[in-house]
């Protein structure tokens, strides 16, 4: 439909507003992470840095525990991502391509788990982990992160699996391929974008997880970024330069991942939303 000048102006205004709301806070933080401390806390803030220094980054990477938090977070997120992808692909294939008794009930129960209040199981899970001697162990975080990522991940697989024509599977079956071979050799390559979007979702939700990490991990050596950085904020006077550098580096991995597969991720979100 054609748009009049007024509508175009309103659209441009709306877009500008969206861009400011979504991006400006990040610009402020990232650009300020290279400012000298006195410019960061100055009462007349600057949009564009007047000073340039890498001292906050140097301090963060050499004289704080941040590098260790970063390694822990990368390990936990990578492992959670791998486990979530495997579980979601296997069960997604069963839910959306196969028939079996109890399928609809199980699928609904899993969807319900997505909106499940994590706080409700925090106390008993802490007890279980302590009985299993997994307190202060990164494996405990992987176990919990997968639990809370996998229901949504299965839901995201739906649209991608539905798009694979049944005939392809039937043809392979006639050629004598086993079910597992079909899944691995034919389905998996065809739903690669779906797998990518599930992977990024699992990585992000694990990367950001704070609640469980704050009670299941106790020593500094095993802290992940959210808990570690929160600990640094809590200490005495906030060192904003250090925090802004930490925020910048913490944002980087997800933004890089998103740069490459964000398109599929948003497609996965919207495709799933269509019935």
């Amino acid at each position, binding site marked *: 439909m054609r748009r009049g000048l007024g509508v175009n102006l309103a659209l441009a205004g709306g877009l500008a507003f969206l861009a400011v709301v979504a991006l400006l806070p990040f610009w402020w933080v990232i650009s300020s992470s290279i400012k000298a401390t006195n410019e960061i806390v100055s009462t007349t803030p600057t949009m564009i840095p007047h000073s340039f220094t890498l001292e906050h980054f140097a301090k963060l990477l050499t004289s704080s525990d941040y590098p260790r938090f970063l390694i822990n977070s990368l390990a936990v997120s990578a492992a959670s991502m791998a486990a979530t992808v495997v579980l979601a692909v296997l069960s997604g294939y069963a839910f959306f391509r196969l028939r079996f008794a109890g399928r609809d009930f199980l699928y609904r129960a899993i969807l319900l788990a997505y909106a499940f209040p994590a706080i409700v199981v925090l106390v*008993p899970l802490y007890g279980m982990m302590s009985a299993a001697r997994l307190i202060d162990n990164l494996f405990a975080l992987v176990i919990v992160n997968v639990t809370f990522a996998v229901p949504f991940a299965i839901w995201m697989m739906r649209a991608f699996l539905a798009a694979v024509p049944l005939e392809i599977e039937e043809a392979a079956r006639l050629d004598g391929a086993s079910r597992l071979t079909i899944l691995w050799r034919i389905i998996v390559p065809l739903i690669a974008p779906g797998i990518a979007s599930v992977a990024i979702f699992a990585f992000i939700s694990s990367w950001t997880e704070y609640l469980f990490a704050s009670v299941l991990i106790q020593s500094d050596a095993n802290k992940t970024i959210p808990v570690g950085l929160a600990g640094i904020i809590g200490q005495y006077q906030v060192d904003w330069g250090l925090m802004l550098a930490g925020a910048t580096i913490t944002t980087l991995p997800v933004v890089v991942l998103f740069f490459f597969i964000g398109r599929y991720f948003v497609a996965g979100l919207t495709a799933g939303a269509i019935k």
Partner: protein
Amino acid sequence: MPRRSQRRAARREAIFAWTLVAPVILWLGATLVYPLVSSLALSVENVRIIGSAGRFVGLDNYLSILSASAFWLALARSVVWVVGNAVVQTVLAMAAALILEQTFPGVRVARTWIVVTWIVPTIVIVIVWRWLLSTSGGMINPLLIGLGVINEPVGFFSTATSAMTSLVLINSWRWFPFIAVMLLAGLQRIPADLYEAAAIDGASRFARFRRITLPLLEPALFVLTVIGTLLSFNVFDIVWLITGGGPADATTTLPILIYRTAFKGYRLSEAAAMSVVAMLLLMGLAMLAVRTLAPREEGG
């Protein structure tokens, strides 16, 4: 004969399917269903710290939390929190979705990167807003003074109302793009000829929005509101890391109260009882919403 082999094939398919779903079922059973049941067990005992033995006390924990004002106040704050978030997020998301539905140069990039506030880790969001809203170097105070909205720097987390309002705005800022993307998917399903026919009949833009867009979007809006309510009820980290539930408990929502009772007050059984009540309330609310408010599907 063919029927028998068909039945056998169906059984083999079912066995294969169960093998594929078994890992997820076992995983969620062990980490959600079992803890849920042990939460119930814990709530009728008097365990204070994890690992210590408890004694059966019946409904004592329930009686004591329900008779103390802390629980009811936290519940009321949770209601304010959930409703505030639902309103702000839905309005912002609807506006963003209507903008992103248009075609303009760069629309595909915009539709992808709009979710940037949602992919950024919570701890970063906490740092971003604690700094931007702080009185030392924060950008927002000078900005508002420059615009003439306020005369002198305000402490955004210093009074009960301003702390709650700031948190609702921050959380909504984080979540509205996610909802916008979902709504956009719903908008794109509305056939363009409906709008064209209405335009030919002389319907204004606003009339088209009210008579076509809103009714057709209702099912999507409903689902998003129910899920959004549950998800925003659960929000813990943003509140905990920005205000810690303060000032003077003004932002102590139920998740904060449960966390504090369990891990700062060392009254695990009481925390478990609160969790059980919270979950019953949420489930009841969700079921009630689905039963009474769900829009009817018309024709598919």
